[in-house]
Every structure is written in structure tokens, then in C-alpha cells.
């Protein structure tokens, strides 16, 4: 027993590099954010003023808009990803793998580059509108609107919805679907009563993995939303970089983090088996 424990202690040392990493780049910055959020920028005394200053009309509007756009994008991703994941899971392993590869190929390109590409495509005199006018069709004016931001979010985050759902679906024993059909369920009833409930862990994981980056992004809104549409990510960026107010910026970040933690706790509760969850 004692030898086993010593062995375990030795093993624990293997985690030391990560421990140093986590302390230096995760825990200390977190403490600093909490510190800045609860202190005033003059003198460093304890205050809650940063929070009241952070949540004035403009920021609250940006937060709600962020939540709305992230939710809409997540919903679109789910609707698009689920059938795709089902088709992939039904195929033989090899063929499914190839499609998955083609599907994630764009992910190998730089995130900024991809979003810039959409900017060029969607511009007033961009590629898409040139083609549309060539064909005599009305032009598409969605650049610098929330629609362009949603498009960018869906395009960038869709694979993060497909993969966890696919991973859960391929693990379900095919006999279970046949058993449902055998007991009288039609294809739609089988989907509703068997496929969906059994894929909940994948759905929850997919929602988390799309919703959180969509909620916090400032690059997509910056490039595709122009300067007119501010999301919470842009507001926080402005506090830090333009207004140089770390205290209010930290307070905003902290509130956003609380939102994220809540969504993760909810998903961990739903996903009892712990398959594919982030916690």
C-alpha cells in the first residue's frame, strides 16, 4: 500500500509543468482580474463602482445583443449540424472519416483569414454582389449588419457542433434503433424517443462549444459588423485598449465569465454521463 502511495506521489510530479503553467497563466491572471474588478483605479481601494459603471445602457445593450446573436448562431448550427452528424454516423467508418476531413479542412486555415475572406465576399462591391449583378439579381447588403455576424459565427463554429454530436451518435448501438422499430415505432418516433435522448450529451457539448466562443468573440463582429455593431467582446476590448480602463474592463469580463460558468454548470448537470462535457 505504502509503496503504491509513493508511486502515486511520484506520478503526481509529472503534472508539475502543467501546474506551473496553470499558476502563471490561468490562476494569477484570474486573481488579477478579480482584484482590478473590485478596486478603484485611483488608489486601489475596495469598490463596487466598476460594476455599476460597467453596466450602463450601452454595455447592457451589447451584452443582450451578444447573447441574442450567440443564441441564434448556436440554434442555426444545431439545426444544420444534427442531420449532417446523423448522415456521417450512418456511413461506414471510412467514408464518414473522409467527409469529416473535407468538412474540417477549412479549419486548418487561419481564423482571421477566413473571416477576412467573408468580408471581401460580402462587401457592397464584393465577389457575391458582382456575381449577383452579373446574373441580373438584386444585390445582397448584409455586410455590417447582425446577419453578417451570424453568418461568420455559423461558418466558423459549425464544426464544433458537428463533431461532438457525431461522436455520440456513432457510439450508439444500431440494435437499439432496430429494437425501437421492432416495437412499433416509425422512423420519426424512433428519432424523437431514441436518437435525440441518447445524443443529448453531444448536443449539450456542441451547444457549449459554439455558444461560448460566439458570446465572447470580438473579431467576427469587428470585421463583419463594421464599427456600428458592438458586442460585449468589443466593449471589453475598447475598455482595455482604447479607454485604458482595466478596472471596468475586468468587471465586465468577470460578469461575462459568470454567464459562461452558469452555462457550463447547466450543461454538466444535463450530461450526467460526463461524455463530451467540458467540465
Amino acid at each position, binding site marked *: 500500500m505504502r509503496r503504491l502511495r509513493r508511486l502515486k506521489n511520484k506520478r503526481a510530479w509529472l503534472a508539475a509543468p502543467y501546474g506551473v503553467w496553470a499558476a502563471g497563466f490561468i490562476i494569477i491572471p484570474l486573481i488579477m482580474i478579480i482584484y482590478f474588478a473590485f478596486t478603484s483605479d485611483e488608489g486601489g481601494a475596495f469598490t463596487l463602482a466598476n460594476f455599476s459603471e460597467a453596466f450602463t445602457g450601452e454595455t447592457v445593450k451589447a451584452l443582450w445583443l451578444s447573447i441574442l446573436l450567440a443564441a441564434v448562431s448556436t440554434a442555426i448550427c444545431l439545426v444544420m449540424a444534427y442531420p449532417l452528424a446523423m448522415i456521417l454516423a450512418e456511413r461506414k467508418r471510412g467514408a464518414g472519416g473522409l467527409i469529416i476531413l473535407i468538412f474540417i479542412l477549412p479549419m486548418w486555415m487561419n481564423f482571421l483569414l477566413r473571416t477576412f475572406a467573408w468580408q471581401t465576399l460580402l462587401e457592397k462591391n464584393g465577389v457575391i454582389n458582382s456575381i449577383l449583378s452579373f446574373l441580373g439579381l438584386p444585390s445582397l447588403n448584409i455586410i455590417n449588419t447582425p446577419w453578417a455576424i451570424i453568418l461568420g459565427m455559423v461558418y466558423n463554429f459549425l464544426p464544433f457542433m458537428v463533431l461532438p454530436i457525431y461522436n455520440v451518435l456513432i457510439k450508439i448501438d444500431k440494435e437499439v434503433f432496430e*429494437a425501437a*422499430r*421492432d*416495437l*412499433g*415505432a416509425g422512423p420519426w418516433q424512433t428519432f424523437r424517443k431514441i436518437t435525440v435522448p441518447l445524443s443529448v450529451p453531444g448536443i449539450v457539448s456542441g451547444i457549449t462549444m459554439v455558444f461560448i466562443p460566439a458570446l465572447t468573440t470580438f473579431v467576427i463582429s469587428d470585421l463583419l459588423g463594421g464599427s456600428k455593431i458592438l458586442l460585449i467582446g468589443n466593449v471589453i476590448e475598447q475598455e482595455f485598449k482604447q479607454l485604458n480602463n482595466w478596472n471596468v474592463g475586468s468587471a465586465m469580463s468577470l460578469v461575462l465569465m459568470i454567464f459562461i460558468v452558469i452555462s457550463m454548470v447547466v450543461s454538466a448537470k444535463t450530461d450526467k454521463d460526463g461524455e463530451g462535457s467540458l467540465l
Partner: protein
Amino acid sequence: MEENALSSVLIDMINISKSFGGVTVLDEFDLSIKENEFLTLLGPSGCGKTTTLRILGGFETPDTGKVMFGNTDITNLAPNKRQLNTVFQKYALFPHMTIAENIAFGLKIKNRPAGYIKDKIKYALKLVNLEGFEERSPTELSGGQQQRIAIARAIVNEPKVLLLDEPLGALDLKLRQDMQYELIRLKNELGITFVYVTHDQEEALTMSDTIVVMNQGYIQQIGTPEDIYNEPENAFVADFIGDSNLYDAIMIEDRLVEVDGVKFKCVDEGFGTNKPVDVVIRPEDVELTEPSKGIVTGRVTNLIFKGVHYEMEVKAANGTEWLIHSTGMKPVGEEVGIYVDPFNIQIMNKPEYSDEEAQAVEE
């Protein structure tokens, strides 16, 4: 056996062929399943028995031929529209539902009233000896218990036919034997038809009214367990069912067969003269005598105690090797005589087609 109870045909499979990716699994297959029958599809893996069951269940569509259920053609009917239920090999219980929800699944789909469903769950759990398991989760159950729930889930729908796909394959020996008796009891209590798939010949002999021996997509023999065991129609059946002494032989004339140069009297007639045949003699039908009283003499080369009997191997003077089951023991090296009652020698025609040829049983 009970001829009148087994008389009316319930399902007719007519001229069914099915291939997967160019490999023929069933070839012009015909089978009638009678009402109230315990019918077993028996054969080595790849013989087409599971495909036959899946065609009955509606999970595969045959390339040619049709399936008649009474007077209705059900060949292309979806699985959920059939009056059959399946017990799957890996049980296929719904892991996100309780036992009660699993059993209620089919009844809820059919919108049965809640009171009726509750009674049915209770009845089914009693039938499979798992009363009080309603609120448990399938993951908490042992393999044998999951098996029983899978059966309960199927039978509450009152199917005319229950299809069972190697349902005891994953259980250990003792449990398997218990479940065999359980299944026979269930079948008698429910009074429905069972179609059972297995590669285990002992299981088939124990439970069935009718055994269908299959190999490479063809039916080798259909008969009662006694028929199949005592009068195998070809070498494959003889070899697959039980232990046997299987010899190439020549039918000299009616009632006389020659094995490795030694002539044996038998009771079969009508094979012609000097015709090559297969001969099967069960190990328990070989009698050991004084050397002078045997048809042929030999020496014991191997001896194993099997509990109920001894298993001995004897190499005869003419080179034939004999497997013998006997309650009397002869030590290794002893000179013995071998005698076989003419009635216990089974003569079989050689297979006509090369692809029906008997092949070594893969186990």
C-alpha cells in the same frame, strides 16, 4: 410430436435469395413456419440463419422471393408494421429508460391506456421472474436479467411470433441452461411461435420442435431433434450435430456397406450397388466386445473420463479410427473387438452439388 397442434402454416418464405456485396447469403430459400412451433435455425456462422431472421423481422429485404404471413405478403412491410417481435442478440435495451419504460415502449406507441400498460408490465415481469424491477436502470442489470427484460419487452406486445437471435450467446453455461428451460416454459405459457437462431447444437436439440440445419445459405435438413440426430440426411448434418464417426464408404448392395475394406450389415436399401456413400455411426452406438466377437478388431489409443461415460479412441486393424462413448472402460493399449448393430448404421447419399459439400465445422 404434437402433430395436430403444429399443423397450420403461419409464415411461408418462398424462393428467397439475398446477397450482400456480391456474396450470396441465401439462395432460393424456402421455409414454412407453423403456428405454435418452436423452430430453430441452426448452423455455423455465415450460414444465413441471422439473415433469415432479419428478413422475417423486416430489417432486410430479400433480393428475390416473398414472405407470406397468413395470406398477406409482408416482404416489403416496415418492421414496425409487423406482428412479430425480436429479442436481439445484445438485448438492445434503451439505456435512457427505466425497466418499466422499456417494457412500456411498444404499448405507449400503440396508445394503450395507462392502467392496461401498468398491468402488462407487472404481468411480464412476473413471467420472467423479475418482479419489482420496474424502477431500475438497464445498466444496473446482469446479462441474464437484461436478457429477461428484452423478452418481457417483446412479449407484452402479444406478437404472433417471437424472433430470438442467439439470445443466450453472451451468458455463461449454467445461466444458459437455466434460460433454456425458462424459454421452453415461456413458450408453453404464451402459446406463440418461436423462431430461434443459434449455432449451438445442444441448445437446438434441447428446446426445438423443429430444427432447420443450414449451411452456406442452403437448408441441409428440416426435422425434429430426434430425426436430425438419429437420421442425418448428409455428412454436414451428421458432423454438425453431436459427435460422430463419419466415413467414406461403398454401398455394396442393399443392407451391406463396406468401410475401409470391412463389410458391415445395415438396414438401408435402395442406394444401388457399389455406390459411394457417407456413413455415420454415433459414438454411443459402437459396442466394444471381446476381440473374437467383433466385426473388426483394434487397439485403444486414447481414454478420457467424461463423467457420464468414457470417451475412447480405437484404431482398428484396417486403419479406421473409431470414437466410442461407453460406460465400460478399456485401458489404453488393450485389444478390443468393435461391433455395431445394423440398425445404428446411418447411410447417406454424397452431396450432389459441390457448394453443398460438407465442410469442417468452424467452432
